[in-house]
């Protein structure tokens, strides 16, 4: 067995994930039974017992889901911590890129969080409606989420078990650096253009939220995912690190940078997830989701404020902006 699995943080993380999976496995089994037997218009003892059971299962799922929201930052924190013992890695960037599971794992975790948020939203409206109109929809969604969580658990184990601490890893400067001479920015944009787009899309999201234009909001959200990510990686991040060539989404999660990466990425992905959930609530369930949208606006505003703060703070301290790095295009 890989001795890395005995590392305290990894052991806690894997055990936590496993316990949650066991709890969700029980919920999954009961959920299948409920799906088979559910008949809201029946007044039999079986249906009443099923309704009580459904409520209990809902509470278990909500609890497990909240734990999942906590376990994602803990996963990143764990990767960051083990970067100290893995040669070559200076932050989570190196660890996550060690094997094929790393990035897959990260994406499946993000997908699960998005689906969990959607499940919570459907569940909220389902309970609020008194007659459980979306019971089957949310139950099938839970089945799908549970399958993903099972895959995630296997990948969690496989990812950590496959890390060889005797092998030298890549650091973030190799992974995200501009050394290859290739423009890493999307759509052939340069830094100036991406920053202009960053603020324009933010304004577009805010205005479409208050203008109640869901399709424009959706386009804004889809565009903001790459634009927001690359803006942080290749522009705002350099102000956080105060180094023009340090491009890494993970180093900012470290103590040296006051763990600013957690609120920064948390508010970014939180905003995206809240936005998508709000649009689904309005377009699919025909429910007013003002509160979700306000939370999304708040989330993105925190994200943009943190990003902008570091640029202004650097300028205030030094009287100049960081020199932009020249990006050579490969023709």
């Amino acid at each position, binding site marked *: 067995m890989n001795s890395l699995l005995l590392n305290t943080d990894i052991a806690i993380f894997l055990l936590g994930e496993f316990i949650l999976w066991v709890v969700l496995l029980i919920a999954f089994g009961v959920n299948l039974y409920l799906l088979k037997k559910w008949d*809201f218009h029946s*007044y039999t*003892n079986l249906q*009443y017992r099923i309704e009580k059971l459904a409520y209990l299962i809902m509470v278990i799922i909500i609890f497990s889901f909240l734990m999942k929201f906590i376990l994602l930052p803990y996963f990143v924190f764990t990767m960051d911590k083990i970067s100290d013992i893995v040669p070559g890695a200076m932050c989570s960037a190196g660890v996550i890129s060690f094997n094929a599971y790393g990035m897959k794992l990260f994406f499946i975790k993000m997908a699960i969080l998005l689906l969990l948020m959607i499940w919570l939203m459907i569940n909220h409206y389902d309970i609020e409606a008194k007659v459980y109109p979306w019971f089957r929809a949310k139950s099938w969604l839970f089945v799908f989420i549970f399958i993903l969580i099972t895959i995630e658990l296997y990948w969690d184990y496989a990812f950590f078990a496959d890390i060889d601490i005797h092998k030298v890893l890549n650091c973030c400067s190799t992974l995200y650096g501009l050394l290859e001479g290739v423009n890493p920015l999307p759509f052939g944009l340069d830094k100036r253009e991406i920053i202009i787009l960053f603020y324009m899309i933010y304004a577009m999201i805010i205005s479409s939220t208050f203008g109640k234009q869901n399709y424009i909001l959706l386009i804004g959200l889809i565009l903001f995912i790459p634009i927001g990510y690359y803006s942080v990686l290749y522009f705002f991040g350099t102000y956080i690190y105060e180094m023009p060539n340090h491009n890494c989404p993970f180093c900012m999660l470290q103590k040296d940078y006051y763990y600013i990466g957690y609120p920064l990425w948390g508010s970014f992905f939180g905003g995206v997830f809240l936005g998508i959930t709000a649009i689904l609530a309005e377009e699919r369930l025909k429910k007013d989701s003002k509160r979700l949208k306000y939370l999304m606006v708040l989330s993105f505003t925190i994200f943009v404020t943190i990003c902008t703060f570091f640029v202004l703070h650097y300028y205030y301290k030094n009287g100049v902006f960081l020199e932009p790095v020249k990006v050579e295009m490969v023709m």
Partner: protein
Amino acid sequence: MIEIKNLNRYYQVGKERFYAIRDISLSIKKGEFVLFHGVSGSGKTTLLSIIAGVDRPSSGMISVNNELISKLPDQHLSRFRNREIGIIFQHYNLLESLTVYDNVSAPLIPERLSLKEIDKRVKKSLKIANISHKANSIASTLSGGEKQRCAIARALVTDASIIVCDEPTANLDRANIDIFLDILKKLHKLNKTIIVSTHDPIFQKLDYIDQIIHLEDGVLVS
């Protein structure tokens, strides 16, 4: 309006199933004064508890004011109970260390009303229940009759349309029983639906009772 169809409530003890009420069907119109009559263990309190949303049936349908209460999720049921049902318990169930005023205002806390509105409603309820003069007294210092009037005021404060009373006269002397019956009559005139579960024969003599429902071993006999 209360509509009950094929209502059962049973308790499973090992392989045995004990029925508290069995196959009850009845209907109570708005503003009616209804008496559940029967000896101890006949299922009166169980039926009353299910109507009040305190207990849930094992099977069967119950609708109160067009709300299928047996199927309501917990948070909706609590809200429903707070707004629609006023309960007067046999042992009053007051918060003994609080004043009468505080006891009566307690059901309004989840309603998030202004203090002015709460004060208005509490004073009105205290007046109907004829207990205004004891508003600042601690509940534990009250006599049995006063405690019950405090419980009545508490049941009225949310302007509930249905008042349920479980053995309300069991702990009262004759004078207090008369006061209590006067208050019930007053509430009946206010078009409240009143359901009393009792084995006290004094209720059967009242001329304003609309329905008397006799229960025996959990079964409706008449």
